């Protein structure tokens, strides 16, 4: 009988010497796919979720808690139902190679979950920058893999670190059936310069721009409780990632009458500032970055009418019109661009393929849907309520991640 082709990959010694393996090894990496949302993988992630939530340290770290909450059993089941894996056969591609982001350490765990749930083995290159989040997650994953019941997963998961090294990357891309690249335009372009398998797939996360739509009357009419919740939600979207995540809102577009907008702004911003002053650890170096950025903005952006500086916690850059390249005017650490528009269509001309997340309050989803189709928008991949800008989803950056990393067997 013919021996089955060995589905185990070896990393050549000259390369593996330069690699630090946090999990897995260089001589036994599987590239065998499995069906999407397999029972064992769902169980693995659900158990990981329990493990993390049971750890007081893990539970206290917001990014780890968010991941643990995301991959708890009930949520995974909900996701699974969407793909209907029982009635149709969908398999992973084989081996996925992931370049994970340094500045949002927890995203490696999401990346891993996407790779595993879509039926692939995963080789993840973790950032070299020290991170408590990564240490804690990696040790929890390791602990769980040591359990006999997850033995079969050991060849399916490799966590590694290596210094910038094109030879290693070149090799890993050459063996990968799918690659997931978290990073800006530059990283994505760099990874594309390496040859890959003819059938390999790519999920790339380049630089994106996100914005928020607000309807003034809805904010004016909110009762105290709803308003407090709303302010907190907006605070989270803006401040939790220092406004540096691709889904953090940069622009607030008010759709309505200038008078009502003004009243809503007067109600809204002092409250958001109050929360930020209590909760946001603004550092002196952030202030210098912010202040330099608004000064540059004052010079460069002709649309800037005035800049409202409420202490240094929030800078509100008032725009008299939207620049065609609005997506290049970014702010961090609580720097918001604001514009007042008479109707939604006035926003359409600036929406390029760079636009990712639209957070919305007070505007109906049907209206948004019609707006996107009517204007044939090239961008905007997510529309979520205010407060959910940073929630990771299996639909991200316009990809159905499971669909993108698997193949459908027509049976």
């Amino acid at each position, binding site marked *: 009988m013919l021996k089955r082709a060995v589905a185990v990959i070896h990393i050549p010694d000259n390369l593996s010497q330069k690699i630090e393996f946090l999990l897995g090894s260089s001589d036994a990496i599987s590239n065998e796919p499995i069906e999407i949302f397999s029972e064992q993988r769902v169980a693995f992630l659900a158990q990981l979720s329990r493990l993390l939530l049971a750890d007081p340290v893990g539970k206290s770290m917001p990014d780890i808690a968010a991941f643990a909450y995301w991959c708890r059993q009930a949520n995974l089941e909900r996701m699974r139902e969407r793909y209907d894996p029982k009635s149709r056969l969908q398999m992973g591609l084989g081996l996925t190679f992931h370049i994970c982001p*340094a*500045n949002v350490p927890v995203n490696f765990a999401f990346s891993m979950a996407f790779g595993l749930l879509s039926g692939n083995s995963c080789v993840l290159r973790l950032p070299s920058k020290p991170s408590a989040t990564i240490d804690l997650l990696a040790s929890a994953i390791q602990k769980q893999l040591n359990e006999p019941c997850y033995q079969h997963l050991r060849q399916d998961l490799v966590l590694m670190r290596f210094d910038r090294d094109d030879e290693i990357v070149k090799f890993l891309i050459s063996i990968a059936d799918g690659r997931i690249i978290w990073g*800006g335009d530059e990283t994505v372009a760099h990874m594309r310069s390496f040859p890959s398998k003819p059938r390999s797939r790519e999920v790339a996360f380049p*630089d994106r721009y996100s914005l928020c739509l607000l309807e003034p009357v809805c904010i004016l009419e909110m009762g105290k409780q709803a308003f407090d919740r709303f302010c907190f939600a907006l605070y989270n979207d803006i401040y939790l990632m220092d406004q540096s995540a691709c889904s953090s809102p940069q622009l607030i577009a008010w759709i309505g009458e200038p008078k009502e907008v003004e009243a809503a702004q007067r109600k809204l911003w002092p409250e958001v500032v109050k929360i930020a002053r209590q909760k946001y650890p603004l550092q*002196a170096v952030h202030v210098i970055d912010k202040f330099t950025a608004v000064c540059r903005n004052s010079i460069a952006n002709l649309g800037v009418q005035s800049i409202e500086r409420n202490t240094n916690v929030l800078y509100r850059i008032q725009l008299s019109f939207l620049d065609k390249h609005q997506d290049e005017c970014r702010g961090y650490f609580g720097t918001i661009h604001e514009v007042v528009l008479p109707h939604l269509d006035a926003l359409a001309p600036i929406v390029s393929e760079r636009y990712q997340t639209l957070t919305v309050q007070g505007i109906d989803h049907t209206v948004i849907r019609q707006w996107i189709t009517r204007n044939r928008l090239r961008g905007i991949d997510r529309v979520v309520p205010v407060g959910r800008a940073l929630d990771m989803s299996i639909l991200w950056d316009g990809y159905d991640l499971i669909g993108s990393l698997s193949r459908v067997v027509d049976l």
Partner: protein
Amino acid sequence: MLGKETLGDIATWPVYELPQARKQSLLLSVMQDLTSHHANSCPGYRAILQKLWNIEDITNLETVPFLPVRLFKHERLISVEPTEVVKTMTSSGTSGTAVSQIFLDKHTSAMQVKVLSRIMGEFIGPKRLPLLVIDCRKTIADRQKFSARTAGILGFSVFGREVEFALDDDMSINEERVMGFLSKHAGESILIFGFTFIVWLYLVRWLESNGRSLNLERGILIHGGGWKQLQSQAVDPEDFKRRLKGVTGITRIHNYYGMVEQTGSIFMECEHGYLHSSVWSEVFVRDPMSFDPLPFGQPGLIQLLSAIPRSYPGHSLLSEDEGVLHGIDNCKCGRKGSYFKVLGRVQDAEARGCSDTYTR
């Protein structure tokens, strides 16, 4: 309003003698004049003023608008015709590869020299002294790399004569040359200049670890420039002085603080370890969270005013250094003006975002 022609007089002001009230009113009128001059002459400065400040109410020195010093790394800010520029100064700094660009016309450049020599005269006397530079000749030879170190050495060379370099191009002390310099100027006071971390690393530490000493008792050491490249080595000023004295015998040691964006208006350290504002400069310490001025004793961001910059809008700058204001007019050294200490650069924070993965 003070015009350009009267500015020459400014250089004749007494360096450390004016009581605060008098100094304030003199400096305020210069600041008001400079602010409106730059607003009229520099479009970038005007744009910032219009959007971020209420310029009607510059009623005291605290309300003079300030720019973040890093802005000069990103924007070309100039308040004279480009044809009037006689010199462009650059500084690398620490944030990435961007370089500050400071444009000087004849007038501003001359003011820098005048003011600097007036301040220095207070510490080393009116005569030029033999100058020993704690650095190597190579540092000033390569004009392509016009660093802060080059600028500092060349700038201070003006106050010395018969300049000698203590270090060879490999940064080792040439004891023979130093001894030669000392015996040539036996009995005279000498001026010694060097960058703080160079003095520390290649003079103090070298002498200590080789069990050597040099007799520089007659020297007046002027050092500055911070520890940017050697943050891990930074020692506290008292330790610096004590150990320097241990291997060289020097007792007259003056640190100075200043930035290339306000060349000339330097803050000299007095015998009691405080940095002093001269009559041409003022310092405020601001709360990073609000930019409100902080009272004496509380640490915050250092803002610097200088009467010199006329060819570029650098008369009021927010630095990236943290410091503490200790008082005004009542330092034990007898010099008038505000006095303060620098604590160091603001701590770099962790940058966050999705797009930092492989290439950067």
